[in-house]
């Protein structure tokens, strides 16, 4: 039964994981993600699951690796420095094609950084992060309802593609209180479990590992993964458009800044500026398809990011450099105001005179 509640963003993720049938959570506390492990420590056991606080993030991700090998729904959550520690394990999960759900509540960096919201882990999340040529499916919610819905979906996607799925949020979304509808999870599609290890009873033994003995096998593996990534790229691009259809100018922004940018668009429209928004929801695969109708049409794009300019590279590729693409960014935990974003859009495109 679905019900409407007021909850902290991080707790919403925890509740959604329980609803999704997550049975094991391995983690290590780090602000601003800690409420996820705290919430689950309280409620997952009541749902027949277990939370284990690992010795560190390396332990946590490798425990996820082991649990995922058995076909059990498993999750870990952390924030930026912790995600750095997990990268080797994530690479192994991708290579072994394990359905692990990961959450990164992005804080600032590099180094220890601060606790404020940031999007500085965009490259790490979308380009591999660890060693080797792999991709995670990366989902970027921008409100509590999406935290819930996307956490639910992350488990299905991970199993469907046998690939780790990363939910990329930030300290702002994690700490924010917002009403959410806790929907009942629809039944998950049947998935093939003929690969899991659970003891070779009445069947041939199975091995889950990622070492390739010869270069020929190595290349065959890479080609197999590549084909999977291509398939995901084709089928799983997600985005939201907001006043984009007739827009002269577009903001491209995800997550927290994607949310702020909606108000910017409304304010611009009041001033007579035809501004629209494309809000990427899947960061990998990046929603290139969203730009097809606009790349020969709009006069300019501004990406609004909480980093030195990371997603802007994917936007430039998506519009094939046919449109000037500018960056407006704040860093170190600072959030831009609606006014400052709009002022910047006006400045880079010389729009002040167009005001009515």
């Amino acid at each position, binding site marked *: 039964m679905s019900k409407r509640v007021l909850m902290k963003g991080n707790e919403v993720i925890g509740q959604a994981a329980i609803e999704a049938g997550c049975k094991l959570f391995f983690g290590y506390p780090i602000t601003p993600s800690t409420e996820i492990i705290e919430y689950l420590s309280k409620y997952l056991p009541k749902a027949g699951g277990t939370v284990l606080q690992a010795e560190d993030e390396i332990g946590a991700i490798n425990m996820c690796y082991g649990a995922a090998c058995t076909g059990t729904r498993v999750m870990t959550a952390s924030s930026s420095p912790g995600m750095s520690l997990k990268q080797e394990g994530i690479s192994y999960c991708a290579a072994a094609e394990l359905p692990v759900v990961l959450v990164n509540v992005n804080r600032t960096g590099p180094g220890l950084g601060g606790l404020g919201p940031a999007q500085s882990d965009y490259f790490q999340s979308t380009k591999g992060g660890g060693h080797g040529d792999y991709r995670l499916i990366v989902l970027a919610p921008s409100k509590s309802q999406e935290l819930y819905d996307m956490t639910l979906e992350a488990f299905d996607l991970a199993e469907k593609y046998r690939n780790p799925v990363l939910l990329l949020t930030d300290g702002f979304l994690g700490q924010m209180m917002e009403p959410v509808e806790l929907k009942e999870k629809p039944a998950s599609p049947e998935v093939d479990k003929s690969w899991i*290890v659970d*003891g070779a009873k009445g069947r041939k033994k199975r091995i889950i590992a990622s*070492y390739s003995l010869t270069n020929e096998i190595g290349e065959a593996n890479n080609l197999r993964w590549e084909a999977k990534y291509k398939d995901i790229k084709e089928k799983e691009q997600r985005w939201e458009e907001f006043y984009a259809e007739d827009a002269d100018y577009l903001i491209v922004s995800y997550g927290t800044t994607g949310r702020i940018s909606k108000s910017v668009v409304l304010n611009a429209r009041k001033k007579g500026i035809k501004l629209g928004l494309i809000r990427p929801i899947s960061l990998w695969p990046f929603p290139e398809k969203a730009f097809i109708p606009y790349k020969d049409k709009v006069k300019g794009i501004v990406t609004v990011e909480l980093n030195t300019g990371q997603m802007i590279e994917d936007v430039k590729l998506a519009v094939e450099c046919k449109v000037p693409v500018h960056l407006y960014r704040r860093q170190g935990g600072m959030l831009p105001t609606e006014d400052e974003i709009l002022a910047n859009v006006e400045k880079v495109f010389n729009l002040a005179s167009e005001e009515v």
Partner: protein
Amino acid sequence: MEKVFGRPKGLTEVPFSFCPGCTHGIIMRLIGEVLEELDIIEDTIGVSPVGCAGFSQDFFTCDFVGGPHGRAQAIGTGIKRALPDKIVFTYQGDGDIAGIGTQHAIHTAARGERITSIMVNNAIYGMTGGQMAPTTLAGMKTSTSPHGRDLVINGHPIDLPKTIATLDGAVYVASVSADSPKNIIQAKKAIKKAFQVQQAGLGFSFVSVLSTCPTNWGLSPQDSLQWLRDNMMPVYKLGELKVTEEVKNL
């Protein structure tokens, strides 16, 4: 005539990938025998390390998982927490478990994780060509301690089973050797006990096995055995280092 010795059912037909005379193979066989004798092949999931034993997944007839260097116990923990009724063991070199993976060694034991870990102590990094390991003896020459392990620069070797025995969650800890028929028989008893401890759900069980690396020690297989006796045994004392009351009553 009846076969009184042969390949145990716990092992596949795949020949071991180890160098000639390397006692890794003896330890693998002992585990294969124990899996057969306890009739747990179909209930067991092994976890292989990165190192010379990195191909263990091919050698055993049970399900197997391989992951990153040093992480076998964390992976084993994940498997066991998902499938508490299955038997989970890790097979790891000394570099794997006492070097890069030390944090898992300590915490898996402290948690009393109901898994079994077998450590193969050959005092060196075999797979990567004979570098210094956490277990390399004082004065011992390796490719990264070419003048001998200098205790001032490199510190002291770690006797991991001794450390593990101090942790409450570890209920059975044994230090054994694969150098002679007598010690091999002892080693098998310890390995068997370690698996029985897990079957009884008593806590973490750990067996460290002294093993040779003729290739990187630069000795013949036979001389390696003698070198192990003369140099490793005085430092890494053999015996059951910890047997809790519950384990004694098994």
